[in-house]
C-alpha cells in the first residue's frame, strides 16, 4: 500500500508530510534540550557508525600529510641529481620518522608525567574530528562510555584546559571546547586571586566575565581554574589575558583571554574520569591516614 493512500485527503499529502516532518524536527529539538534518553541512544548508535570513518580519515590524512611534507619539494630536482636526492629523501624520511616518533614520544611522556602529577584516573584520547559547523567549537575523541567517559568530565592537555565532555557514545565522545560560546568555567587570576568566569568567544578566544572592577588585572596575567566548577581540578592553566576593558559602567570589568592550548591543533587529550584531587595531595592524605590507623591499633 502506498503511503499516499493512507491519507484521507490525498490532495494535501505533501503539505501534511512537510508539517509532520518539521514537527518531528521540533520534537527532536525539544527532546535534546531536555536530554531524554531516547535521543541519546539514537545519537550513540549513529555516532558509533559514523565515527570510525572519521578515525580512518584522520589516519589517512596524517599519513598523506607526512608523505606530502617529505616528498613534495623533491619533485622539482634535476635528473642528474635524482639518485642522490632519492638517497637524501630516504634519509630525510627516516629522519622525519625519527623526529615524529621522538616528538610523539616527548608528547606522550609529557602527558604521562602530567597524568601522574594531576590524577591517576585520567585517560588519554585521540582527536578524530572537528566540529562540522563554524558556529560551534567541539572535537570528537576516540574514547567513550566503555572507557569510563561521562558527560561533563573535564578534558585537559599538559598546557591547560581544553573543555568538557558534551555527548558520549560507547566508544566515542564529543568535547565542547572552552572557546565555544556555550562554555563557562569558574576561574581565578593567578597573581591577584581575583575570581571570574571564563566564557567562550569563538575563534580561539575567551572572555573573562564577572570580574569585579576593583580587582587589578593587567595584560599578561595568567588565569587558572578555581576548582569550583565541578570536574576541573584547581590550578589548571586556562589562558593569558590579552586585553582589559574597563570602559563600560557597572561593577564588572571584562578581559579577553587567549587559551593556553592551541585548540586548532589538537591531537591528543586527557579526560579526567575520577577524583580531581592532585596525586601529591592524595599521597599526603594517605600518609597521614596510615599513622592514624597505626595509632588506633595501638
Amino acid at each position: 500500500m502506498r503511503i499516499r493512500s493512507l491519507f484521507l485527503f490525498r490532495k494535501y499529502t505533501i503539505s501534511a508530510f512537510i508539517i509532520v516532518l518539521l514537527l518531528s524536527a521540533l520534537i527532536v529539538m525539544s527532546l535534546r534540550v531536555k536530554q531524554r534518553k531516547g535521543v541519546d541512544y539514537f545519537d550513540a548508535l549513529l555516532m558509533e557508525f559514523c565515527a570510525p570513518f572519521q578515525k580512518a580519515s584522520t589516519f589517512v590524512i596524517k599519513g598523506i600529510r607526512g608523505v606530502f611534507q617529505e616528498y613534495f619539494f623533491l619533485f622539482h630536482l634535476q635528473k642528474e641529481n635524482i639518485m642522490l636526492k632519492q638517497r637524501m629523501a630516504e634519509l630525510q624520511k627516516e629522519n622525519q620518522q625519527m623526529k615524529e616518533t621522538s616528538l610523539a614520544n616527548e608528547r606522550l611522556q609529557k602527558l604521562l608525567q602530567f597524568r601522574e602529577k594531576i590524577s591517576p584516573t585520567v585517560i588519554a584520547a585521540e582527536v578524530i574530528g572537528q566540529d562540522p559547523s563554524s558556529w560551534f567549537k567541539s572535537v570528537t575523541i576516540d574514547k567513550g562510555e566503555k572507557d569510563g567517559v561521562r558527560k561533563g568530565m573535564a578534558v585537559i592537555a599538559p598546557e591547560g584546559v581544553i573543555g568538557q565532555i558534551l555527548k558520549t557514545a560507547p566508544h566515542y565522545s564529543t568535547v565542547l571546547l572552552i572557546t565555544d560560546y556555550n562554555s563557562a568555567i569558574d576561574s581565578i587570576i593567578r597573581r591577584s586571586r581575583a575570581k571570574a568566569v571564563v566564557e567562550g568567544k569563538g575563534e580561539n578566544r575567551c572572555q573573562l566575565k564577572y570580574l569585579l572592577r576593583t580587582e587589578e588585572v593587567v595584560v599578561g596575567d595568567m588565569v587558572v581554574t578555581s576548582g569550583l566548577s565541578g570536574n576541573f581540578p584547581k590550578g589548571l592553566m586556562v589562558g593569558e589575558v590579552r586585553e582589559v576593558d574597563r570602559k563600560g559602567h557597572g561593577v564588572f570589568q571584562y578581559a579577553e583571554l587567549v587559551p593556553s592550548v592551541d585548540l586548532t591543533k589538537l591531537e591528543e587529550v586527557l579526560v579526567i574520569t575520577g577524583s580531581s584531587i592532585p596525586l601529591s595531595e592524595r599521597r599526603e592524605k594517605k600518609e597521614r591516614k596510615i599513622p592514624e590507623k597505626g595509632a588506633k591499633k595501638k
Partner: protein
Amino acid sequence: MRRVVFTLLLGILFLTLQVTLLTSFPFRRIRPDLILILVLYLGLFYPPISGGLLALFMGFLMDLFSGNGFGLYTLSSPFIFYGARFFKGRFYLESFTSQFLFVFTFGLVEGLLILILLSALNPGPVDKLYPLLFTFLLPQSLFTGLITPILFFLIRKGFFSLFNHQEIGVMERGNRS
C-alpha cells in the same frame, strides 16, 4: 531504495570530509559546507517525501558531531530542503553563476536561521556570535557557492554511473516518493 542508501552514504562521506580533511587546512574560515550542498542538491532533484527525510537525517548527523546541544540543524535542514524545492522552478540552475548564487544565498539563509533559532533558545550569549556573520558566514557561504558546480557535477555523475537513466529521470522530476 538504492539511491536513498547511496545518498545516506554520500552524506556520511561528506560529513567525514567536513570534520577531518577540510579542518586540516590552514584556511578554516573558508571551509565549505558540504552537507548544505548535498541538502540543496536533494532539494533540487529529489521528491518531497524521501528528500525531506534525507534532509532531516543530514541535519541530525550535523548536530551529532557539533557542539550545539539543541538540534538546530535537524530543524534547519528540512527548511532549507523545502526552500530549495520552492525556489527551484523560479531559477535557471544549469549555469555556474546561478548555481553559485543559489547556494551562496541559501548558505546565508541557513546561517541566519541558526542565529535566529539560537537567540530564541538561548538569548544571553548569542551576541558573541554576531561578528561571526562577517568573519565566518560570508566567506564560508562564498566558498560553498564556488565549489557547488563541481560537487553537483560529481554527484550527478555518480548517480548516472550507479543507477539507470529511467530511475534518475523519475528522481529529477520528483514524481516518485
